[in-house]
């Protein structure tokens, strides 16, 4: 069976690397890490992931903006995105409602088990 391709976009490099290690450890996923928000679109177009884990608060660009750009990109508009965020208050998530448009999110800290559940749930 072919490995599913997962892109992790997060400026916290060590977190992204740990996620990569844990997911690849299962033998079922191929994971790429991108720590620069601005490079996310380009990397995604090249890597063609089956699902993207996307951080919301990054220093150079907001996760919401990236999703917005993906919507108008032929290659990426159907790629499922799961937000990974340390901002877990309802209020803060709701305030971004227009931007993240019903995309699912996971609160940090997150277990590998949760990541796998979401991958299996959202990859069509």
């Amino acid at each position: 069976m072919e490995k599913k391709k997962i892109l992790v976009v997060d400026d916290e490099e060590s977190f992204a690397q740990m996620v990569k290690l844990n997911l690849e450890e299962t033998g079922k996923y191929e994971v790429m890490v991108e720590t620069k928000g601005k490079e996310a679109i380009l990397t995604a177009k090249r890597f063609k992931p089956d699902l993207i884990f996307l951080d919301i608060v990054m220093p150079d660009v907001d996760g919401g903006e990236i999703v917005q750009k993906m919507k108008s990109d032929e290659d990426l508009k159907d790629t499922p995105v799961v937000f990974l965020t340390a901002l877990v208050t309802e209020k803060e998530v709701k305030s971004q409602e227009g931007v993240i448009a019903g995309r699912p999110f996971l609160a940090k800290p997150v277990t590998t088990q949760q990541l796998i559940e979401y991958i299996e749930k959202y990859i069509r």
Partner: protein
Amino acid sequence: MEGEKVKVFLVEDDFSVFSLVKEMLAKLRGYSLEVDGAPSLNESIEKLQSKKVDVILLDLNLPDSKGEDTFLKLYQKFPQLPVVVLTGFDDEELAVKVVRQGAQDYLVKSRVDAYLMMKAISYAIERKRIEEALRKARDELELRVKERTAELVRVNEYLKQEIEERKRKEEELRITYIKLKEAQQQLIQSAKMEAVGVLAGGVAHEVKNPLAIILQGIEYLSKKIETDNENIKSTLKYMKEAVIRADTIVKGLLDFSRISKLDIAKYNINSLIENCLLLMKHQLDRHHIRVIKELGEDTPELNVDKSKIEQVFINIFMNAVHAMPEGGELIVRSYVKSLTEDTLPFQVEGKEKFNLGEKVVVVEIEDTGSGIPQELLDKVFDPFFTTKRAKGGTGLGLSIVRNIMEMHNGRIDIRNRNEGGVIVSLLFKRGGGQYGEKEDTSS
């Protein structure tokens, strides 16, 4: 007395004695005497009422009065007149008795001569005069004492009023002080809340990222290190538990900072209490805690955020369970009452006011545990204050509870019971929380 005319009045029914005395007195040289008299008591009294005399010579045995009585009747009428009693030879005992009752002197008829009589008369007059002067002085003194006493009583009364007034002022001052202190506490509390709220958001983000990394790292190591070494296994397990605990605290902080709106609907407070007791049933049973419900049947429906108010009850019930590890009683009471001067709660700035006579819904939750040491009572609502740190307490429970109550325009108060344990009183305005609704419509 010399040179002056001394008026003597002789009360004597025996005419021979009467004449004898008169004669005797007339013979005295150097004295000017005027002698008058009467043969009976009644006649004497009548005469004396219109006549001014200096001394009375009195025979006790008269046709209309005998013995002691004769003197007493006369003395009663004319207490200011000196009386010298004339008595028979065998009646000295009676004479002495009468002298004790106020007569000036006595003379035994058969043994008296003019000189003796005159001496008795003048002494009697003189003694009486001194007595009178003394009496007058005493009366004056008494009057002055009375006046002075009256003045003292007045001053005393005035001082008493002054003291009362001061006590009243002191009491007013004390109440003002308490109110000020409460206001200050309230301000400090809000300032703390605000600071914590601001801090919470920032800290949460900064802490959650490293926690996420550590958790991922632990999971990776757990998989990679294939070992039967129990120490390695338990180390990894403890690390994971620690991360989860830290995350719980951060979540509590976020809860705390994000309570800003309520999801209001009408609920009967009793049914919310019942729900929570049901949720707690296992915990209560396990700790052998008996629940006593005294839920008022007339409590009206309140505007509340169901999950927030349930969070309040659960939190308080959990505290009660922790306070009674060896079992006990949990008493839950609800009722409606009118606010009086004594029960009017402190007004919180920016919240709806409580008014005198207003009907409020009260929920009281009592436990029979160990109570809270007095010096810690003030701190129980402080964020991060906990006595259960070792058991994973974050110290945010009651701060959040208080925030929720204030958002509902309600109040919470915690006191020790006299008989041990704690009583938590919750006060709900009948309108309940409107704050969140307003915020919702404005956003």
